[in-house]
């Protein structure tokens, strides 16, 4: 199964604006991109519909992590997923240009909570996406295999249609 991720440039801009806001406790911000899914025979397309930032009060102080979500943040995201039956993508940003990649901390933490979304939307792919200032990298947890796979086809639809990931699709 192949995966694509599509987002309008307008929504991506709004996400970047939110992630740029300073936080009193955390060094960086995180949120969730709420996606709908388009299914074809060999491809699933994640279509970003909206963005849900993690509330200011739901970050925990941490000396080792740029942003640490508290249990309330996870609970709210699960609730939103349950109510909308959406595909949820955790999003944060690395502050540089060029293709980003998940840090070892990202990989470890994503593996802990991304599969939890299947408890409330078992048939949906869920995942994580890390942005840089101009590119993106993502991983999607395939509901059929229950395993994460890299998602390199990430496109921002606008003027122009910008390839964000490593591949163009």
């Amino acid at each position: 199964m192949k995966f694509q991720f599509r987002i309008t440039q307008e929504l991506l801009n709004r996400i970047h604006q939110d992630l740029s806001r300073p936080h009193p406790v955390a060094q960086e911000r995180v949120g969730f991109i709420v996606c709908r899914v388009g299914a074809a025979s060999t491809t699933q397309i994640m279509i970003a519909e909206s963005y849900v930032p993690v509330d200011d009060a739901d970050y925990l102080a941490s000396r080792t992590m740029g942003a640490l979500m508290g249990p309330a943040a996870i609970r709210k995201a699960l609730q939103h997923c349950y109510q909308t039956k959406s595909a949820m993508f955790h999003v944060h940003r690395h502050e540089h240009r060029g293709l980003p990649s998940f840090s070892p901390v990202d990989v470890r933490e994503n593996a802990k909570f991304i599969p939890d979304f299947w408890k409330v939307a078992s048939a949906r792919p869920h995942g994580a996406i890390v942005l840089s200032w101009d590119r993106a990298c993502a991983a999607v947890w395939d509901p059929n295999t229950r395993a994460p796979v890299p998602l390199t086809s990430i496109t921002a639809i606008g003027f122009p249609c910008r390839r964000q990931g490593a591949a163009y699709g």
Partner: protein
Amino acid sequence: MDKRHIRQSFLGNEVGEVAAMAKATIVGLCGGGSHVSQQLAHIGVGYFNLVDHDRVEDHNGNRMVGLTAEEAERNDLKVDVIARRILALNPNAVIHRYPTRWEEVAAELKSSTTIFGCVDSSRVRDRLERFARRYLVPYIDVGMDINTTSLGFSISGQMILSLPDHPCMRCLGFITEERLTEEARRYGHAGGRPQVVWPNGMLASTAVGTFMQLILPWSKNLHPPLFLEYDGNRMTVSPSHKVAALSGRCCPHFSGSNTIGDIDWT
């Protein structure tokens, strides 16, 4: 860089890769669609979904680019004719042929880079645009018309780019309930609409140019035109004034819940 891309290297070092990975869906393969297919093949687009339920006939010969007399006599499928022309230009192209109505293969069109609507029907245009918006696929519509006037005939046409967060064909007044109603009223009346090759070529070229601006902009601040109007009597192509009139307005026709992605009945 592959030698075939040397003359289009101004589009960037990645022109070959980006074109090869682009997936173009072309619905309607006669007047406008044959031109679009040909140009995309020349550019090096790598994936094609060709959608047309029809077979070629003699009367297609006046405007279907690449159609041979032999193919017309055999009444070949239009998807086969166009596929052969594409492969002759780009043997590496991956082509999916759908000799059927687009709705029957809609699932396979969701992953398109762009959908080109080269059809005669407003109803089909309307549905294609709705589909494209649902999956965040840029939709480019081309079409021409020949109308009777007091002085003879007038040739006109349009190229419309429909993108999420931008005016749709209903916003632009191109798709209207009156037009759809009139089309439904005329449904089944015999006789094809007049069509000739040169307006289709003009409009298809603007469509392909717009597509290229979307995926490989060659200048900063390039802003593809949303609506170009073709006056075939004056031989002009001009941006429609309707776009400026809609500046700053959000499209109300594709907002709200359940307008994105597959319809979830659960």
